[in-house]
């Protein structure tokens, strides 16, 4: 049986960062990211401070740097995009090691890279310290649209079931001598995908019947009582609070210069 391979983002542990209620952590990460995004790109010191703050929380959560780095792979497409901007950008150009680069392009690339990296690390931190289902319960608690939370919950539950089904269909194809080798085989694979979609749709109908049979009336009942104390909110608020302090401090310094 496939043992939850989509839970690789989570790293079990019992640190203060793990123990906080999920809704506090979700709100904290969103607050942190908004602060980062609101920071003007020229304020290098502020970005350095944000990075230090994140590093502090990672240390607290006992998440090794290698774990974070591997999971940052999701950022690679953005990095490639950012790296291309200075070459294709317009405006004033400067010469670096014989390459002609656009100055506004360099700024844009830095802006994307710095903010995206901080955002991704914060998200990896959240995912590493919070089980996916708890994350969704936190989202439910924060009153995110219930329909979206429910869809995500079912995705989590049925991912393995559907992957298993997909695997069985592949085995059935291959048992009859089919292997996908080149583009001419795409129609066959596409038809399988269509069949998989219909099977999943039918399963959805059956699950809905099972839910109705147990008294479902459109909203998920609250089963886990995820109340967070003021103290826990305060603890979770440390990261975005400190980031906000850095931002406000920088604003005061900059305006003081003028």
């Amino acid at each position, binding site marked *: *049986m*496939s*043992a*939850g391979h989509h839970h690789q983002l989570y790293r079990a542990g019992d640190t203060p960062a793990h123990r906080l209620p999920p809704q506090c952590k979700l709100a904290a990460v969103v607050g942190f990211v908004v602060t980062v995004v609101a920071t003007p790109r020229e304020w290098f010191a502020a970005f350095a401070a944000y990075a230090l703050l994140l590093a502090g929380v990672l240390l607290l959560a006992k998440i090794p740097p290698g774990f974070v780095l591997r999971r940052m792979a999701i950022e690679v497409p953005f990095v490639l995009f950012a790296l291309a901007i200075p070459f294709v950008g317009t405006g004033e150009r400067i010469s670096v090691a014989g390459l002609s680069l656009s100055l506004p392009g360099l700024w844009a690339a830095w802006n994307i890279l710095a903010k995206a990296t901080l955002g991704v690390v914060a998200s990896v931190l959240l995912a590493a310290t919070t089980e996916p*289902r708890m994350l*969704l319960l936190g989202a439910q608690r924060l009153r995110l649209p219930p329909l979206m939370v429910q869809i995500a*919950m*079912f995705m*989590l*539950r*049925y991912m*393995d*079931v559907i992957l298993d089904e997909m695997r069985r269909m592949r085995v059935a194809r291959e048992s009859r001598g089919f292997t996908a080798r080149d583009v001419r085989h795409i129609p066959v694979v596409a038809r399988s995908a269509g069949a998989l979609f219909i099977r999943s749709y039918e*399963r959805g109908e*059956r*699950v809905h*019947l*099972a*839910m*109705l*049979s*147990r*008294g*479902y*009336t459109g909203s998920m*009942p*609250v*089963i*886990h*009582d995820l109340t967070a104390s003021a103290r826990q909110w305060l603890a979770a608020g440390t990261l975005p609070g400190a980031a906000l302090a850095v931002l406000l401090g920088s604003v005061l310094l900059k305006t003081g210069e003028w």
Partner: protein
Amino acid sequence: MTASLEVDRLAYAYPDGTQALFGVDLRIERGERVALLGPNGAGKTTLVMHLNGILTAGHGTVTVAGLPVAKGSLKEIRRRVGLVFQDPDDQLFMPTVREDVAFGPANMGVRGEELDQRVKAALERVGMLEAIDRPPHHLSFGQRRRVAVATVLAMEPEILVLDEPSSNLDPASRRELAEILRSLDVTVLMVTHDLPYALELCERSLILSGGVIAADGPTREILADAELLAAHRLELPYGFSAG
């Protein structure tokens, strides 16, 4: 005494006009265990869907412990009729066993300590208490079927309705489930093709065929009547005899 389940001249046609039930009459007393036998396409599933009001009768009535199935009574009806579906992956849709078993009672408004007690008691009855915090997809098929039974037991139903409870189970899981079902003091209606299982668990059997109840009597007598079985596309497995 009011019967656990009373179905009176129930008829139903699907929206496309296909008539599935042509006047079903049956009565199940409290504490009985009854098998509902019948060939594929006899209308078994259609009948089951009427018992908790998922389908609405075209004609006739369904009454559960004195309460007629109607729009206004659906919530209570669904508490009273515990439906266990054939595929436990359809039945177990929550991230963990605990949340799944709690889903029904929580919908009924049970909260906190009482909810916790109900969940544990239901899992205890099917011998799955140690799996309470595991995700359903990490359980074996037999274990998932047992948890599926617990999800409806937690609602303290008047009648347990099982759709093909022995399908896809290995012999040991099949026997374990039988032991669990026998240990429950609840009315059971079991839809099945597994005739030896019906004989093992149910003193009484019904044959649903062509949208009507074609036979109703002690399981042993029904299974011994080879002609009756043959007339409704039912047969005992090779080597079995109910005599």
